[in-house]
């Protein structure tokens, strides 16, 4: 099976503090990996190491087979392959919905404007935001913002999408509209790594779940293994 991400012995220190210790993880094409665990446990840091928003202290990360820790690797080019969706959406506030989705296409991929607009429109349609192209960001609800953010990431045609707690900043009634979009992407075969606190979502959508506690990958397995009978007391305590 084709490996999109392979992480070997990844550790991350912030000064003296160890945030991640010896993480090993493989993400195959089409897989949906959910990372669960208590807040402050290092889940987001792990995700941010994958596109080098954080620089790992030690270890190796391969994306599509190439070592991204290599000094000669073009970080910007790498990041077009790993789309990211943030907890706080981080949409560009000075641009409208459509321009949010075309900016990086035009500047990074050097796509023609006509094509970039078409790609943006297609992805915005996919997330159900096709009727809001001209809207300013501050006119959107949280759920709408996050759906635009997903479309923005999709526009770069990434090999994997990284979600950093995509629903944690949303009002409860908006969580589902975002999760449904992610589910749809999973059905289409999109490779995704999702940091989440939505246990039922992880149970239903994930092909693999990683439980991270105090910077250590305590348990890795399929949803049935994680939610089934196993000997890990800490995990049992967490999903109780």
């Amino acid at each position, binding site marked *: 099976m084709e490996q999109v991400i392979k992480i070997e012995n990844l550790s991350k220190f912030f000064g003296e503090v160890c945030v991640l210790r010896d993480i090993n993880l493989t993400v195959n094409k089409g897989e949906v990996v959910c990372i669960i665990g208590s807040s402050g446990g290092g889940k987001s840091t792990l995700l941010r190491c994958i596109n080098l928003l954080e620089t790992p202290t030690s270890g190796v990360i391969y994306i599509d087979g190439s070592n991204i820790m290599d000094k000669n690797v073009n970080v910007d080019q*790498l990041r077009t392959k790993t789309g990211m969706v943030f907890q706080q959406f981080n949409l560009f506030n000075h641009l409208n919905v459509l321009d949010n989705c075309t900016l990086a296409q035009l500047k990074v991929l050097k796509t023609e404007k006509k094509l970039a607009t078409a790609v943006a429109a297609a992805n915005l349609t996919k997330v159900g935001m096709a009727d809001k192209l001209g809207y300013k960001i501050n006119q959107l609800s949280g759920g709408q913002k996050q759906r635009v953010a997903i479309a923005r990431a999709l526009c770069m045609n990434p090999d994997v999408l990284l979600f950093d707690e995509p629903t944690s900043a949303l009002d409860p009634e908006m969580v589902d509209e975002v999760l449904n979009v992610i589910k749809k992407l999973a059905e289409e075969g999109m490779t995704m790594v999702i940091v989440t606190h939505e246990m039922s979502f992880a149970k239903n959508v994930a092909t693999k779940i990683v439980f991270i506690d105090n910077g250590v990958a305590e348990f890795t397995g399929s949803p049935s293994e994680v939610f089934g009978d196993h000997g890990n007391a800490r995990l049992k305590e967490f999903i109780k």
Partner: protein
Amino acid sequence: MPDRPLSNMVLMSSIEKIVYLFQHYGLLFLQGLGVTLLLAVVGTGVGLILGLLLSLVRNLKATPKDGKLKRIGKKVASFLAMCYIELFRGTPMMVQALIIYFGGKMIGIPWTYLSCGLFVISINTTAYMAEIVRSGVNSIDVGQLEAARSLGMTQTQTMFHVVFPQALKNSIPTIGNEFIINIKDSSVLNVITVSELFMAAKIASSATYMFIEAYLIIALIYLTLTIVFSQILKRVEKHLNAPFVVKLSHERTA
């Protein structure tokens, strides 16, 4: 009012003197007004562009990926930018003008009073603008930066397409304020005899001994300028902060 010889001036009322000044020196004041506006516009415009670049240099930070040489280079550049800002904000523009004008002449720069004046006000404003832009940039949420970088944009692309547009919009009140300050502060450039508004009053008053009247005239002109421009500025701010409403045809209700 018929022209009276200058010897009769003592007998003229202030109103008459003002009228006299307008009749004989009106063109000079008008020219001074033009030069003052030119100084303020060029100074603020050039200062903004150079200040933007200077703030980039000031904000240079070494990353772990940089080699030793690059790291030292960045630190030195950032330090020099800081020195520039401190130097120009920490000394009066009047003193800067004199040093730069005569210093320039000494090393053979063939500038006129006006071109030197434009140069001085521009590089002086640059220092202030660099700090204005820097605080504007710092006010932008780091998430904006991360989002742009996560899409593969370079640091420079991120600054010019994501951070600066938002930082500048937030800084418009302070930038406008800098323009209004420049309208007034360009008056100190009379020390190198730039023929701006203050210089016009100086010439007119020393030729006629109508000191109070001449300076009253330019005070009124300065005041009019600053009030007009601050009103315009308020309009612009209001316009920018107005909630943006898109009307799509299918959303219109009767």
